[in-house]
């Protein structure tokens, strides 16, 4: 038996990938065999997993999930799809974290911020010039729909506090702290440690400047609690915030989300 776009299809000896595409998805121009791109004349073997893709076509939810599964592996993608991740703050860190998580098909994302997109955000945050003046929640949701329309996005235009964080993010698997203000970072970790003891948590501290990116690490501080950054580079210092180094930290955070979802609860 073959598995073609997530459906079983009977295997015949000598069958080639191109023939299969002609039969099941005429016009398909990207053929994926067991997770890797393959040519039309690839000889199929019993048990092969194939994805047949027509580029430019807006895929169905099922097609999207088929494609992600072909790329990431079935077990991993199933867990991504079932996961809920909360992102507190969608500035330089948060907008990059959210985009990354939408791309890999995390099932549900809860994003919260009460800021408006301004010109000084564009140099490091994932917003566009034509989004200046929009609420960040609205702007980012529009982008996310273009990236992966099948992720459930809950966008909260709200100022987060120690009181409302446990209520708003009570049912997430992993909570990612992407605030700019150090007092908010401390408040969020404090409230998570007190009120969300079983929730995975990934904070950030020390992402400013253009120092060696290799000094940014992901450090485990408690069971399922991690801190990303160099712990020292403060945005208040003259160096300011730069897209590359903030991006390194954001993707450290996103990667640790993946690891927590897959129950890899170590920092090694």
């Amino acid at each position, binding site marked *: 038996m073959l598995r073609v776009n997530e459906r079983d299809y009977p295997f015949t000896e000598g069958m080639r990938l191109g023939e299969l595409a002609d039969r099941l998805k005429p016009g398909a121009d990207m053929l994926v065999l067991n997770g890797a791109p393959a040519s039309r004349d690839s000889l199929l073997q019993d048990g092969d997993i194939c994805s047949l893709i027509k580029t430019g076509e807006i895929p169905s939810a099922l097609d999207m999930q088929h494609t992600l599964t072909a790329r990431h592996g079935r077990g991993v993608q199933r867990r991504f799809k079932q996961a809920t991740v909360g992102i507190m*703050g969608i*500035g*330089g*860190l*948060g907008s990059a974290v959210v985009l990354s998580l939408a791309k890999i098909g995390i099932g549900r994302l809860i994003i919260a911020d009460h800021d408006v997109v301004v010109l000084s955000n564009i140099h490091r945050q994932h917003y566009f010039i034509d989004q200046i003046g929009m609420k960040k929640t609205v702007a980012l949701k529009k982008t996310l729909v273009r990236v992966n329309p099948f992720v459930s996005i809950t966008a909260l235009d709200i100022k987060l506090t120690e009181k409302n964080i446990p209520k708003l993010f009570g049912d997430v698997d992993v909570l990612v702290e*992407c*605030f*700019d*203000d*150090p*007092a908010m*970072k*401390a*408040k969020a*970790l*404090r409230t998570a*440690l*007190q009120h969300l003891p079983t929730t995975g948590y990934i*904070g*950030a*501290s*020390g*992402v*400013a400047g253009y120092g060696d990116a290799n000094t940014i690490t992901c450090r485990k*501080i408690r069971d399922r609690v991690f*801190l990303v*950054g160099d*712990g*020292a*580079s*403060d*945005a*208040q210092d003259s160096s300011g*915030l730069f897209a590359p180094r*903030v991006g390194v930290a954001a993707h450290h955070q996103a990667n640790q989300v993946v690891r927590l979802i897959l129950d890899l609860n170590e920092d090694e």
Partner: protein
Amino acid sequence: MLIYDGAVNPLQPYRLYMKKLQILCNGQPQEVASGTTLARLLEDLTLPADSVVAEINKKIIDRDQYATLKLAQGDQVELIRFVGGG
């Protein structure tokens, strides 16, 4: 707590000495004066209190307790300090 200890300095027999407490701060032994509050410890370490999450003997401390919570002999203090930027 202030205690009288005439034996410490015979030249100043009436001087009152601050009793010292030994604590562990982020795993490092540290001596602080008796009566030192968590807020005072942060001040001595030049850490802005609002940017610090503090845990004493595995218990997270509310921010509004920093000014009144006095450290005790043998306390295990864990401080997580945040810097800005995101």
